[in-house]
């Protein structure tokens, strides 16, 4: 059957259409169709706009261009046999005419197809269009590239900020790492990891796209790809040409930016993952300048603004900054040795098990002092510490805590003054939990859980204040309330009997109750007869104290 170009006019991006077999049949005898057939016979390849055509056994219909890149054009097409929409990438025009590019396209298709992983776009079909153009079809991701999400975040879009908070972005990054770890295990490096190549689906799917620069490297897993080996055209001459820069300048590793292609390996992907995480967290690509040449110059020497300084507003946790900078170390040997190790650090961070700062306190040393502003708590790893307060009545021990327990977390949570002294009873090792780390953890949990923790903190702090009056200086309010309960208005009772009963009720020493009664007599709230009988003198003030807790003195 005669094939027909998809469009008879010069196509603009987004204008390519696909002609269904029936439509193609109707037009098969057209003059233009014969002209294109002639071109194909002469050149062996399809003309630029002979994109996706119909033909015998051709199963895709209704194409709409989605994206156009160096390696090919991506269309949204209809799989006519399975009645589903797919993405079809085709090497057209200049790409198809250059044997090196065509070979690279075939390699991309085969590499992508071999990497069956939940976070790598699945390839369904590969071959040549009826026009002879190489194509492959893949899952159509109903989502958007991460770059768009990051732009909205930078613009302060509240809805996006809620949906893609730093925790969610780390989860997305984690999935990208997982895809790369899988590829590395199969001897493949991506070489162009960047937010633009990360598609995020409407239902949280994360797919690493565009394996057009992917390359196989030597490794134990090479045999995994043996099936493809041999039939696949070699990478030469395009990609192995020394000095030819491959990748995207804003994220490039120094070895890529310097054109040292033979040094591009798995460590390069680790750098690119770090650069991607940099953009995820700071909302800016690592390198930016007025011209592409300047960007490449910066990338060549890893001239990087540290992530924390790049966007202080985002309050990027120190541990994440450390992870980014280790992955993006200019020296390949200083980067993570492999992706699983990078993933392990992300896991540790997500699980809140960030390796923290440890501190040793000698016996007798003060960990924190009452009244100071608290910006960190301590997880006791070994040893014992004493929590205490010094009240007007003297030293009061609130507790002794040992390994596995936390001290000072309340002040760190509420950013308030310390409510107690904490002293090491013996040599004690503690992990420092900074207020920033606590806040970072709080941001990870759901908003209501954060409120719950905050409310519990306030209640506990209040409960700590409500200690037995024995423990604090003034118990006159409690005594006044007892007097009102025990002593009927207009009646009198013997001082000793009254004091003993109140002391029993409140579990207070007799002397302290007696002294409180004396003060109430002095304040002329109670009256003491010469025979030591006590009666109420000022009922309304006593009521004020008992009911409204108005201190009389």
């Amino acid at each position: 059957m005669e094939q027909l170009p998809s469009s008879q006019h010069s196509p603009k991006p987004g204008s390519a259409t696909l002609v269904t077999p029936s439509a193609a049949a109707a037009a098969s005898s057209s003059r233009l169709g014969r002209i294109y057939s002639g071109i194909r016979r002469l050149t062996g390849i399809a003309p630029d706009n002979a994109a996706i055509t119909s033909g015998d056994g051709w199963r895709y219909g209704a194409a709409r261009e989605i994206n156009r890149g160096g390696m090919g054009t991506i269309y949204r097409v209809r799989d006519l046999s399975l009645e589903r929409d797919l993405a079809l990438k085709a090497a057209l025009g200049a790409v198809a005419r250059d044997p090196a590019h065509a070979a690279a396209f075939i390699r991309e298709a085969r590499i992508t197809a071999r990497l069956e992983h939940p976070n790598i776009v699945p390839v369904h079909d590969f071959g040549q269009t009826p026009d002879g153009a190489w194509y492959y079809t893949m899952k159509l991701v109903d989502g958007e590239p991460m770059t768009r999400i990051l732009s909205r975040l930078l613009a302060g879009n509240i809805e996006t900020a809620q949906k893609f908070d730093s925790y969610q972005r780390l989860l997305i990054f984690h999935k990208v790492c997982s895809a790369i770890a899988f590829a590395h295990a199969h001897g493949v490096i991506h070489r162009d990891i960047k937010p633009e190549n990360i598609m995020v689906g409407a239902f949280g799917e994360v797919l690493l796209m565009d394996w057009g620069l992917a390359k196989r490297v030597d490794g134990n897993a090479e045999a995994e790809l043996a099936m493809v080996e041999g039939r696949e055209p070699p990478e030469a001459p395009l990609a192995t040409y020394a000095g030819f820069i491959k990748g995207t300048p804003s994220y490039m590793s120094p070895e890529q930016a310097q054109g040292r292609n033979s040094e591009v390996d798995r460590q390069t992907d680790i750098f690119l993952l770090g650069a991607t995480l940099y953009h995820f967290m700071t909302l800016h690509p690592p390198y930016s300048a007025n011209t592409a040449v300047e960007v490449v110059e910066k990338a060549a020497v890893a001239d990087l603004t540290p992530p924390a300084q790049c966007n202080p507003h985002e309050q990027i946790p120190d541990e994440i900054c450390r992870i980014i900078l280790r992955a993006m170390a200019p020296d390949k040997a200083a980067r993570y040795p492999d992706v699983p190790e990078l993933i392990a650090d992300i896991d540790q961070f997500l699980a809140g098990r960030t390796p923290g700062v440890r501190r040793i306190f000698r016996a007798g040393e003060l960990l924190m002092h009452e009244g100071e502003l608290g910006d960190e708590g301590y997880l006791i790893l070994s040893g014992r510490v004493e929590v205490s307060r010094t009240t007007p009545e003297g030293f009061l021990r609130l507790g002794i805590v040992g390994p596995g327990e936390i001290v000072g977390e309340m002040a760190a949570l509420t950013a308030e003054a310390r409510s107690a002294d904490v002293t090491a009873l013996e040599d004690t090792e503690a992990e420092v939990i900074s207020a920033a780390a606590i806040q970072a953890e709080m941001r990870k949990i759901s908003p209501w859980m954060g409120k719950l923790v905050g409310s519990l903190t306030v209640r506990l702090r209040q409960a700590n204040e409500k200690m037995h009056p024995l423990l604090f200086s003034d118990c006159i309010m409690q005594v006044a309330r007892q007097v009102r309960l025990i002593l009927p208005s207009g009646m009198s009772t013997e001082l000793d009997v009254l004091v003993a009963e109140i002391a029993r009720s409140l579990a207070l020493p007799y002397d302290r109750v007696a002294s409180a009664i004396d003060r109430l007599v002095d304040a002329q709230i109670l009256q003491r007869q010469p025979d030591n009988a006590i009666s109420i003198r000022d009922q309304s003030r006593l009521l004020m104290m008992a009911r409204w807790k108005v201190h009389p003195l």
Partner: protein
Amino acid sequence: MQPMSAEPTTFACRQCGNCCRWPGEVRVSPEEIRAAAGRLGLTEEAFIARHTQVTRDRQGLTLVEDAGGACRFLTPENRCAIQSAKPRQCREFPHQWRAPEHEHLCAGLREPHSGKEPA
């Protein structure tokens, strides 16, 4: 709840000291603090500072324990250093209060008393 092997009436202390080694609060009233402080020749304030801490419910004081949960007043001979002034909570065990798990730790509760007090 399983019945105890030994009824309190048949209980006789074997002086093993296990009951003084259980971790847990020993609440002390102001009178008990006064008595214990007097027994040790301390002021009440000094006794509170050295030997007590606030209870978990923040409503009173409890004796400070050693790291393993043992009472500080238990001597190496399994005697109480403040025997004549020991808190009511200690005095009343196991006649006034006890829990099933104590049976495993207290020989006097585990084995019925033969009727003869230990030496």
